[in-house]
């Protein structure tokens, strides 16, 4: 019998029993805190085997081998290899199990946080787990148990490694706090949905809480997955001084039995439990029957912390897309990720439920950019993403990087598209947008588009993609060119909704192309489409009329019960908040003054006015820069402090934005006093200083290519060359990362990059900066602007 079958035949029992704790058993037997329990596999295998044997006797069907922390991060410096520790751990468990129990390779968290919280990359985590998994499979493990996870992305790395390297069944459990979230904010629905999509064989909860606190969490989990549910809780809470857990075996088993009505199938114990707990569990469960939860499939997507069920119209924000947007294209070329993040933040603020992400430009490496943008977006917004590309490689790279359940935009009825895109959708458990077009183009009639939708659905189902994950886009045609087609699109939406029971998507804004009063056409069409069954309008949420139309639709269709949301959005009390300082407060009639005082809105407004009568460069060189210089001088004299310096820079930035837009409209050459590459060095994640420097430099008119934090040496070299940067700025905050600064400088010199290097950071001294080969030491953000001034002189960069 193969391993998968062995596991699935176990599931034919009413309940599958897991074992109890290993770590706390060993600690009771004298293992010091902080020591690695996994080393006992080699040094005291009999002790390990004895504990396993007790669990078999107590009735466990699956033993977790003592391999929880046997990863190379934790074993570093122990003198033992992952392979040896894992093999010995699995061996001990197998010997104790005989033919009475299966043995799981136990995989816990690596012990180092993944990006963006920490500095371990997803691929790095994948690699660490792969090594454990290869060793476990070679040693003969029957099952893989990924447990005690708090980061959904780390869990994904382990699960992907398990699925890609072995055929073994995989149980995944995470650790939740009472509020239903993990330390990193992952929610129960997001966890269940994401891991089921990625191919886990059972999901659940372990550690942290006692079983008495689990009913609401288990109940919620059952609503979000069809998989068997695992519960392996602690024996309550430990006493801080004695470390004794407060729930005894009888009560433990009682609380566990109380979870049966919520649908648990696989049960065991975590910290503080002993063979007695499992024995009692077996006795108490013996007369009970498994109660399979009534699962109702629903279309939903998620990020780690936010699940968005498509139970009403959900707005997909369309703004992260370079098509027809000069500034966006420029931002992509400059790798100005902050620009993209700001687009995301403003759309979320305006009411986007999901964000479409398209970063395709012929000049860039799209898969790489997709990963970079997806990671950066997930660091600042909780909104689920729709990955939008015509390049399957970019889609796969994005899906791999995305923590949660994404939407893939898109597949169409052509064979090539179906056979390349749907396997990715299946593998990563995403939802997918099916476009109703094929080789013959977009069919004219609703019936023909419906037929393609049907074909896409059938193909998806045949590949094991659940129906609720298929979304259909019946395609909006421009009303000015094909007026008669508008009604066909609406009809097709209705047919797909009614006859196939699928959720529908439409890009709305296209409808009005080439017409006057586009806004009117757009929101009118949106309302019509919603009434015909549109679920996921792709729109610009920053245009108020569009989000208004969605809000009104929800109100009128009795979806927004009691008009609660509507009233909150439009009652007088909730009048739109004015962000920042109001434009022209009466006191500042002069742009220089507005910049000096940090009045953002005034600065923008006054720049708009000045552009009517003055040349852009005159404004920059004659007003903005001198104003910043005045502020800088006051800062140096200690008359004005860092927050004010930054506020002035912000005001100048608002002015620069206006000028940039003006120039891109009038096709003037961009204002740039030169290009500077900035990075916080490899290994360091303290970047607030670098970010302040960036704001100031940008507002002195420099183009800043910000590589972020924890930046590889090569990435700095590449960027400096690619952008022909004459100045590179490096920051490091820790004594331990200064060596990365030195390494980066060394590589820049070795590759003979024609640039000056300035360095800064709290632990640096001018002397040390010189020793490691920097050209300049900047003691603060203001000084970095002075250095830039010296490096670039008055010379203007070629545009």
């Amino acid at each position: 019998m193969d391993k998968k079958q062995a596991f699935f035949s176990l599931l034919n029992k009413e309940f599958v029993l897991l074992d109890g704790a290993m770590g706390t058993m060993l600690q009771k037997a004298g293992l010091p805190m902080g020591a690695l329990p996994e080393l006992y596999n080699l040094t005291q295998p009999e002790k390990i085997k004895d504990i396993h044997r007790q669990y078999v006797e107590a009735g466990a069907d699956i033993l977790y081998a003592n391999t929880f922390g046997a990863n190379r991060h934790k074993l570093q410096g122990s003198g033992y290899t992952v392979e040896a520790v894992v093999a010995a751990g699995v061996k001990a468990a197998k010997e104790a199990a005989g033919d009475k129990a299966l043995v799981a390779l136990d995989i816990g968290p690596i012990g180092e946080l993944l990006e963006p919280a920490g500095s371990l990359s997803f691929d790095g985590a994948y690699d660490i787990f792969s090594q454990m998994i290869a060793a476990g499979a070679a040693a003969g493990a029957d099952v893989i148990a990924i447990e005690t996870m708090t980061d959904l992305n780390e869990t994904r790395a382990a699960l992907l490694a398990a699925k890609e390297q072995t055929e073994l069944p995989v149980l995944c459990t995470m650790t939740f706090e009472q509020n239903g979230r993990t330390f990193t904010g992952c929610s129960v629905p997001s966890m269940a949905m994401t891991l089921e999509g990625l191919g886990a064989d059972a999901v659940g909860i372990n550690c942290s809480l006692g079983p008495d606190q689990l009913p609401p969490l288990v109940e919620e989990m059952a609503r979000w997955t069809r998989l068997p549910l695992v519960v392996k809780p602690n024996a309550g809470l430990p006493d801080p001084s004695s470390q004794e857990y407060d729930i005894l075996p009888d009560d433990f088993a009682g609380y566990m039995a109380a979870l049966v009505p919520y649908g648990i199938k696989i049960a065991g114990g975590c910290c503080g439990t002993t063979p007695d707990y499992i024995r009692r569990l077996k006795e108490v469960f013996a007369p009970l029957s498994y109660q399979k939860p009534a699962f109702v499939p629903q279309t939903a997507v998620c990020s780690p912390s936010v699940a968005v069920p498509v139970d009403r119209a959900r707005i997909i924000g369309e703004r992260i897309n370079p098509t027809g947007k000069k500034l966006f294209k420029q931002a992509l070329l400059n790798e100005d990720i902050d620009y993209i993040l700001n687009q995301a933040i403003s759309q979320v603020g305006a009411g986007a439920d999901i964000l479409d992400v398209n970063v395709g430009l012929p000049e860039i490496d799209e898969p790489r950019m997709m990963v970079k943008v997806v990671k950066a977006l997930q660091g600042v917004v909780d909104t689920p993403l729709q990955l939008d590309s015509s390049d399957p490689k970019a889609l796969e790279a994005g899906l791999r990087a995305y923590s949660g359940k994404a939407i893939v935009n898109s597949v169409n009825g052509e064979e090539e598209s179906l056979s390349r895109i749907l396997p990715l959708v299946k593998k990563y458990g995403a939802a997918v947008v099916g476009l109703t077009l094929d080789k013959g183009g977009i069919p004219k009639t609703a019936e023909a588009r419906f037929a393609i939708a049907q074909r896409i659905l059938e193909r998806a189902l045949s590949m094991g993609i659940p129906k609720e994950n298929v979304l259909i886009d019946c395609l909006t045609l421009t009303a000015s060119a094909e007026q008669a087609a508008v009604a066909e699109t609406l009809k097709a939406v209705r047919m797909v909704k009614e006859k196939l029971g699928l959720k529908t998507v439409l890009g709305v804004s296209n409808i009005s192309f080439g017409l006057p009063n586009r806004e009117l056409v757009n929101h009118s069409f949106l309302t019509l489409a919603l009434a015909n069954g549109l679920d996921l309008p792709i729109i610009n949420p920053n245009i108020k009329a569009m989000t208004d139309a969605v809000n009104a639709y929800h109100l009128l269709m009795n979806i927004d019960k009691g008009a609660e949301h509507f009233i909150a959005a439009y009652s007088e009390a909730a009048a739109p908040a004015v962000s920042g300082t109001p434009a022209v407060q009466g006191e500042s009639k002069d742009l220089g003054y507005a910049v000096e005082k940090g009045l953002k809105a005034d600065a923008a407004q006054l720049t708009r006015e000045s552009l009517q009568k003055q040349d852009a460069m005159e404004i920059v060189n004659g007003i903005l820069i001198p104003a910043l210089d005045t502020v800088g001088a006051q800062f140096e004299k200690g008359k004005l402090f860092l927050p004010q310096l930054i506020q002035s820079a912000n005001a100048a930035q608002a002015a620069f934005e206006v000028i940039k837009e003006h120039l891109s409209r009038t096709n003037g050459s961009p204002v740039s006093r030169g290009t500077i590459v900035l990075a916080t060095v490899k290994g360091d994640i303290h970047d607030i200083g670098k970010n302040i420097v960036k704001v100031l430099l940008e507002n002195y008119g420099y183009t800043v290519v910000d590589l972020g934090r924890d930046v590889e040496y090569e990435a700095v070299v590449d960027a400096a060359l690619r952008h022909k940067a004459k100045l590179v700025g490096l920051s490091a905050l820790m004594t331990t990362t200064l060596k990365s600064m030195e390494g980066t400088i060394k590589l820049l010199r070795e590759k003979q990059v024609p640039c000056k290097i300035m360095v800064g950071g709290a632990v640096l001294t001018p002397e040390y900066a010189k020793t490691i080969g920097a050209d300049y030491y900047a003691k603060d953000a203001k000084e970095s602007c002075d250095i830039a001034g010296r490096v670039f002189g008055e010379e203007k960069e070629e545009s």
Partner: protein
Amino acid sequence: MPIVLQDLNKQEIFRYLGYGGAEPDAVTKKLTEDCSIRLLKEAVPRYLYAVHPLRWEEEGIRVGETPLLLTGNSIKEHLAGCSRAALLCATLSQPVDRLIHGAGLRDMAESLVYDCCACAAIEQLCDQAEEEIREKLLAGSKTPLYFTFRFSPGYGDLPLTVQKDFLAVLDAPRKIGLCATGNHILPPRKSVTALIGISDKPVEAKRRGCGACPMQKTCAFRKRGDHCG
């Protein structure tokens, strides 16, 4: 006992912002007020501690039976006369990192103020945790006990490389989600590890001072004749 942070010390925040004794402008004052309220909402204070006996070995001070070995002269000096030490770790948790980072995309001034509010908050959390440790130990002891100030890895010549073992002894990654990176940085970023020496005899009344600080040569506070904490 869960610790609830309240009312951050604004004077401290202004000092972190670089104002020294100077009066901040009205905009910065208002920003600090708003940011500290939001920060307290977002922060999830978590902390752990454990008391271990100390063993003086040739290479350094061994913490109980654990793998944690404290090396260097500074820690020897700090723990002189102490038979036990409390290991403390504390964090404001990930939402604070996101708050500081997210604010920086819109407005670096706001981000900077959040950062300084977070510094004040983590200090407050450590102060309260330290208070709890003292009270607990004193309540459980028949004889008087004396405590040193909090000493963190990175002070003096106590290397940052001990962070991983330090956190492992407290089981901090699992219990409060606090880890060390390969470069010994502690994410979530507003986190602290510290040792408090415990003695039966009065310990030399040392204060946390600039002498042990690795930043003493470059510190902007010191240049102004000020200090950070």
